[in-house]
């Protein structure tokens, strides 16, 4: 279902580079990245590469370092050692505009409860200097099937509706790199289907999608690569087609160097 379709070069369309942003990249690389908090090691000399047009699943027990890895890649947390490069350049050299190419769907959704759905999208759209804001906001509302409720306050939405809106908020500026932290939590079937379809769309247009999740069933048919994290250490399962849960258990059972 489109999984063999890997876009090596960015296609115009879903991933459009807005006029003001000159930054783009097709690869994100972690080189010997470590992050520790006092004695607690969250990431241990991790080296990974992510390329355009793939969906990578990040699995591991709680406290394994998944959120830390996402935070480091999102430039929110500085690694204690090692480097993260986006198309060969570090976050420091790229500066603020780099964040305009990254979209994050966090555990806590990043939505203002007292604003309406439309206002939330407009606000973030402005901050990200999104072109043709009005059009894009309407398109996003349509994609999330929230057009009828666009003028309702987000605090009145159910978790599923909020999540749909949060996803569109994260994607409004057509990011190259999409980071999702437990996106399937608390979703009903309709929302799950929407999410899966949206993620496939992203992959097909060349985005780099990295998703931390516990949801094996939904991830099973979706991800291209699987990365297992334990105590900050990484084990990669390059071909993750089918039987995810079994593969995960297998990877976890092996001795980790």
């Amino acid at each position, binding site marked *: 279902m489109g999984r063999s379709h890997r876009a090596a070069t960015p296609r115009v369309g879903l991933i459009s580079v807005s006029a003001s942003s000159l930054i783009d990249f097709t690869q994100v690389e972690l080189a010997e990245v470590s992050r520790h908090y006092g004695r607690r090691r969250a990431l241990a000399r991790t080296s990974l590469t992510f390329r355009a047009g793939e969906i990578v699943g990040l699995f591991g027990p709680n406290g394994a370092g998944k959120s830390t890895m996402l935070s480091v890649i999102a430039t929110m947390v500085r690694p204690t050692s090692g480097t993260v490069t986006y198309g060969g350049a570090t976050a420091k050299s790229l500066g603020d*505009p780099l964040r305009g190419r990254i979209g994050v769907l966090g555990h806590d959704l990043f939505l203002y409860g007292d604003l309406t759905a439309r206002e939330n999208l407009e606000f*973030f759209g402005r*901050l990200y200097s999104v072109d043709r804001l009005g059009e894009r906001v309407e398109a996003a509302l349509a994609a999330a099937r929230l057009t009828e409720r666009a003028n309702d306050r987000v605090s009145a939405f159910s978790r599923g509706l909020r999540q749909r809106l949060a996803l569109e908020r994260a994607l409004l500026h057509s990011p190259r790199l999409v980071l999702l932290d437990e996106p399937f939590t608390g979703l009903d079937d309709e929302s799950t289907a929407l999410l899966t379809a949206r993620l496939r769309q992203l992959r097909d247009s060349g985005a780099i999608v990295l998703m931390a999740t516990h949801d094996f069933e939904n991830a099973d048919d979706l991800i291209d690569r699987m990365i297992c994290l334990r105590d900050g250490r990484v084990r990669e399962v390059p071909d993750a087609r089918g039987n995810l849960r079994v593969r995960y258990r297998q990877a976890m059972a092996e001795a980790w160097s």
Partner: protein
Amino acid sequence: MNVLRAAWWIARKDLIVEARSRELAYTTLFFAVSCVLVFAFAYIQDGRSLDFGPAEPVANSVMPISVTDAAAGILWVAVAFSGTLALGRAFERERQSETLRALLLAPTERAAIYIGKLASMLVLMFGVELVLVPIIGLFFDAPVGRAPLLLAGLLVAGTVGFAAVGTLFAAMLIRAQSRDVLLPVLLYPITVPVIIAGVRGTAAIFGAEPNLEAATAWMSMLVFFDAVFVTLALWTFAPVMSE
């Protein structure tokens, strides 16, 4: 998008959110008025100040306070206490849905976030002061209309100084533990010069023999303090917000 535009959008968003729930406006205002009442009971009786001086005046001892001195002090204490509460609450709200994180993830310059938040906090505090000043005038028979521009100038300059430091600290404490108690612990000692200048300036206006030159001098000091500390805050905001 340049810094000021981004700051404007952020401040506007904050004010819209506040206008819808009005939680901060009501609670901060009510708290400020309660503060005034509590201190009034402590320092005033039958419209006269309680006499705190020793039986015989001793060199270097604190002199007994007049009603207008008390009024000036109470005004600024109420501003400081309610301001701290408002700062804590405003950022707690951002913390709950991690929206501050969302702001930090956006490509806007960090300075814009600081300025936007500072601006919306100032609007809130000026609103509270607009109500407090007449109340002080009412309860203590303080001459609030004597030099309105100067009084307004003092309040503006002092509030900016207090909020400049407060916004930085409240933002940076979002990720810390014990944040609700650490904010006042950190904020009050550092804003002592602001409080001193504000109180003395206001007292100079309210006093039986008003000294407007002194009040203006205090205001200049506050303006200088504001310039230095807003600059310092802008300088340190970005590094302190990144882990």
